[in-house]
């Protein structure tokens, strides 16, 4: 067949959307874009659970979407959900109910995954994205910020203050003040002020804004948002902001002919973008008109085009892990050594461990961050590393992957993973094996620089006849490394069934 067709459904906080698009000889052709307002976010953000009535409505929407997709011969639709589902306490029941009533399996994206998809989608159109940039995505339930330096993501932060959520949180205050916008700004700034201490914005950063609300704002300002990008100068943006900041949602609704629910979230969203523009120090806002469905579909239709961007993203992940490690005053040279040794070992025994490149990336991130717990306390630093990594915002990694990295870090030195450890028992079977294998590797890598003095030079790693042999030359004695390596070798052998040898040759 000369064409390929794909469909995706996005269950968001304020609407359900579906896109059906085909790729044919002329390129991309969007066949359908459907949007049904459904305020699941109202339920989650105020009641912490989604009501049965809303789920029923959702199921009938999904069934009607399924019918429409079936009209194009599509029987499976990639369906994702974001904040409203993610934060609902009754999520397990909801997923089950939706599956039973519609046959659709909904994948609930965690916050970092959602942002990863968005950032990738923005950077796919990278021709316009400058080397230095602050990228922001304002969803209804959460806000994501990424700082790019020299073309790589350096820092990311996800904050749970989306447009709808902000208006829900601050709604009780609205009636009591004439300067509601100031309250909103102050509230947002409680987060942004902290960021200013955590990251220095690179010079000449562009400010990329995305999310439905910036599309709306641009539309209200008379811009066309049909292209990939649109630009609003700082002055224009501020004068628009000034024109709405003193209006009540009712007045906004009347002035711009918006439904009340959209009017309610306009001011909070506009304030978020204003503050982020200040944060970025850019003199204009570059809007990027994206949506989740579109991003998913593009990936389905052009899997190969994503190879490049995925490679780039892997680099970004390591880059931001390194920046994070810097914040914890890490020992750069030791970390680099552990990263090198561990990666070499991983690559050398590839045929034995059967792990993919994603596992390699997790190992590398673990190497970069394995000692960050020392920032808290040298005693049991591995436990602090574990705690820190679990709670970090790292771009491109989902929550489960972060847990795995945290575990690898935890077991990089003294302890070995045991089923009775709580953090191990909560892992799935595959995850346990993964943690075991990768921690076995990092332990060897770490042992090879036990003294933190990078004594082992010109190492070469070789795997033959079920023996992993590491040859290294040193100029100083390396008894500590030799001893540490032999200490860690048993667990490695237990995990992989491989014998290890560290052959150290002293040269002058």
């Amino acid at each position, binding site marked *: 067949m*000369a064409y390929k067709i794909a469909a995706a459904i996005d269950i968001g906080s304020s609407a359900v959307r579906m896109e059906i698009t085909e790729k044919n000889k002329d390129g991309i052709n*969007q066949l*359908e*874009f*459907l*949007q*049904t307002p459904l305020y699941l976010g109202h339920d989650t953000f105020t009641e912490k659970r989604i009501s049965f009535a809303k789920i029923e409505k959702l199921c009938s929407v999904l069934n009607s979407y399924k*019918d429409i997709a079936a*009209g194009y*011969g599509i029987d499976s639709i990639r369906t994702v959900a974001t904040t409203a589902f993610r934060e609902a306490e009754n999520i397990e029941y909801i997923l089950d109910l939706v599956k039973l009533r519609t046959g659709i399996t909904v994948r609930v994206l965690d916050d970092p995954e959602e942002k990863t998809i968005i950032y990738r989608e923005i950077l796919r159109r990278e021709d316009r994205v400058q080397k230095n940039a602050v990228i922001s995505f304002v969803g209804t339930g959460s806000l994501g910020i990424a700082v790019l330096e020299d073309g790589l993501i350096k820092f990311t932060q996800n904050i749970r203050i989306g447009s709808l959520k902000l208006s829900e949180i601050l709604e009780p205050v609205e009636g009591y003040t004439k300067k509601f916008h100031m309250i909103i700004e102050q509230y947002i700034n409680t987060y942004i002020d902290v960021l200013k201490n955590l990251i220095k914005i690179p010079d000449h950063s562009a400010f990329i804004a995305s999310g439905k609300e910036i599309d709306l704002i641009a539309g209200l300002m008379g811009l066309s948002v049909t292209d990939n990008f649109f630009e609003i100068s700082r002055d224009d943006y501020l004068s628009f902001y000034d024109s709405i900041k003193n209006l009540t949602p009712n007045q906004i609704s009347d002035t711009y002919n918006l439904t009340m629910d959209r009017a309610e979230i306009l001011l909070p969203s506009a304030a978020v973008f204003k503050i982020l523009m200040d944060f970025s120090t850019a003199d204009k806002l570059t809007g990027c008109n994206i949506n989740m469905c579109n991003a998913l579909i593009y990936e389905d239709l052009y899997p190969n085009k994503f190879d490049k961007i995925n490679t780039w993203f892997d680099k970004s992940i390591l880059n931001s892990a390194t920046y994070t490690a810097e914040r914890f005053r890490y020992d750069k040279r030791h970390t680099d050594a552990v990263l090198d040794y561990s990666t070499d070992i991983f690559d050398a025994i590839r045929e034995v461990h059967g792990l993919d490149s994603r596992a390699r990336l997790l190992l590398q991130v673990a190497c970069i961050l394995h000692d960050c717990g020392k920032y808290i306390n040298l005693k049991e630093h591995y436990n602090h590393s574990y705690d820190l990594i679990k709670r970090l915002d790292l771009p491109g990694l989902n929550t489960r992957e972060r847990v795995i990295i945290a575990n690898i870090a935890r077991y990089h030195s003294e302890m070995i993973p045991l089923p009775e450890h709580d953090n191990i028992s909560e892992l799935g079977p595959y995850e346990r094996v993964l943690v075991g294998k990768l921690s076995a590797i990092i332990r060897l890598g770490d042992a090879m620089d036990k003294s933190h003095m990078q004594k082992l030079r010109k190492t070469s790693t070789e795997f033959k006849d079920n023996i992993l042999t590491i040859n290294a030359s040193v100029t100083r004695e390396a008894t500590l490394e030799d001893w540490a390596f032999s200490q860690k070798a048993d667990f490695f052998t237990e995990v992989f069934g491989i014998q290890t040898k560290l052959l150290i040759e002293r040269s002058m």
Partner: protein
Amino acid sequence: MNLAKPSYFTNRELSWLEFNSRVLEEAMDESVPLLERLGFISIVSSNLDEFFMVRIAGLKEQVDAGLETVDAAGLSPAKQLTLASERIHEMVSMQYKCYTDLLTDLITAGIKIIDYGNLDEIQTEYISDYFDDIIMPVLTPMAIDAGRPFPFIAGNSVNIVFILERDGARNYAIVRVPGVIPRIIKIPDGLQGETYIFIESIIIQRAAELFKGYDILGSTCFRVTRDADLSIDEDDVSDLLFEIEQQVRQRQWGSPVRLELSRNCDRETRTFLRSSLGISESDTYYIDGPIDLSVMMSFKNRINGYDVLKYPEQPPLSVPALAKGSMFKAISGKDHMVHLPYQSFDCVQDFLSEAADDPDVLAIKQVLYRVSGDSPIVETLIRAARNQKQVTVLVELKARFDEENNITWAKKLERAGCHVIYGIRGLKVHSKILLVIRREPEGIKRYVHLATGNYNDRTARIYTDLGFFTCRESIASDASSLFNNLTGYTLLPEMKKLAASPDGIRTFIYKSIDNEMRNASEGLPAAITIKANSLSDTDMIKKLYEASSAGVDIKLIIRGICCLRPGIRKVSANIRVKSIVGRYLEHSRIYCFENNGNPSFYIGSSDMMERNLDRRVETIFPIEDPGLRQRLTEILEIHWNETDKSRWLKSDGKYSKPEKSGKESQVQLYEYYKNLIKSDHL
């Protein structure tokens, strides 16, 4: 400038009555074949019936509710009722006069409708048997006396009231003229020709057999018309299908709005009927002839032969480009426009039929509004569903007086596995759309048929409508979005090409008018030509007045209601309005804006009434193919220049007929299409 002065507007009801009187003029027009004139007589009646059931009933409700709000023409509901009633009384007496004249002419032509008294011996015997065997068994006399109250008289049924006497006591009895037997019966005629008799004449003659032991002092035919508009509070309804079924059943119970009585009725009986039914003198119509002349349509259709008394045949022409080979292929090559009834409706059925059987077709989506009784469209959709196509049908249950019919088809489709949606809460879906999704080697392709008229094979023979086939992606994508909006809960995205009410059409027309006004102010060519059925929306009229004042040349071909008054100095001096009423019911809607020498053409389902613009789902769509635009230009020219069936609207709201010259546009158009075929231009 105040454009809202009442004197600038004609009341909607009075304007409609003018339209009905133009239909009556066709019945009186001696150049129209005799039996067709009988057809127009019938249309005048059935039109009036609906007018009473809906419009007059509505006005009465307003009066009863104490509403005194005046319309754009400055008339209160009470005043409108009075004026309408005067006009209808006048119209009915003209109609019956015309009917009497037609009967005389028919006799000359060999067709007689006679009274019982004029039967010869053989005929009397024939009728006597007919009465005993067929009529008598279905009659149910209902006596009215102290123990038996006035019975319920079903709306629009013809009844006979008898005055009876026994032992010096008088009472009434009512017999309903049975609806299950043809009202006009053919009786043997020894001579060459046809002879007929109304059955009420037989029943009256033989009434003694119904009321044995009574003296019959007199009898009179009468008919009651009742309020028949469905009033459904859709917000309170969980199952629209069920609710409409219920209401249709209750329709005959609406309150009476008109009483028709034979002129020969005595005063006492008249008073008795009026008080029993609660009807005022002004709502009582005295009839010089048979009650309910709508029966003449089926009567005229029953008469075989007599071709000279009928319109010459104009068999629908085929559309050569669509008639051979695959319709999909033909539509892929270019857009096609089909003009009913000059051209055949078959292509729509063929298209649907090809889609139903084509293995590459994935889905068919259609809006059905008024479907004919044994619709081939419905049958084809069922076949498509059986062929594993995904079939989605939006059945508009609320199509007035077709509700019952529509429910039947909706259920049938549902049983066959089609996905049926029963209309939209609060909005009537009036758009005519058919969408076919097909898998082709290069990708998904969507084919669309959009039209100005319904998917009804019967009206396709008598309504002039335009249908449009295309696979332009922009239009297909809009059509698909509209469907999703109608069948699901999705928001309607911004349309690329279509304009759809309830929001889009008014905005679109205003914008187009503004554009003409701008051009006029810059001295550029500025003109608007619109062909539609009705123009009654006050804001739209004001907008047209503005355009006229700005120097835009406006030509309107409005068949029915037109509340706009043309030719008023400084208000509508640049507006000319004509109405065409002829053999076919003018039904196509065409919107043409001069657009500084590059005219834009839109056609669609929407008229310019408030309901079309604000309360219905209607669509209008652009015709962009240069050849089809040329054709629309010619169609509009033919209509505009015709004088035979045209009437010009004057600034006082009355119509005048121009001197006849040349052929009527409906004949010209038929020839136009014949020539296009001959010259291979189709």
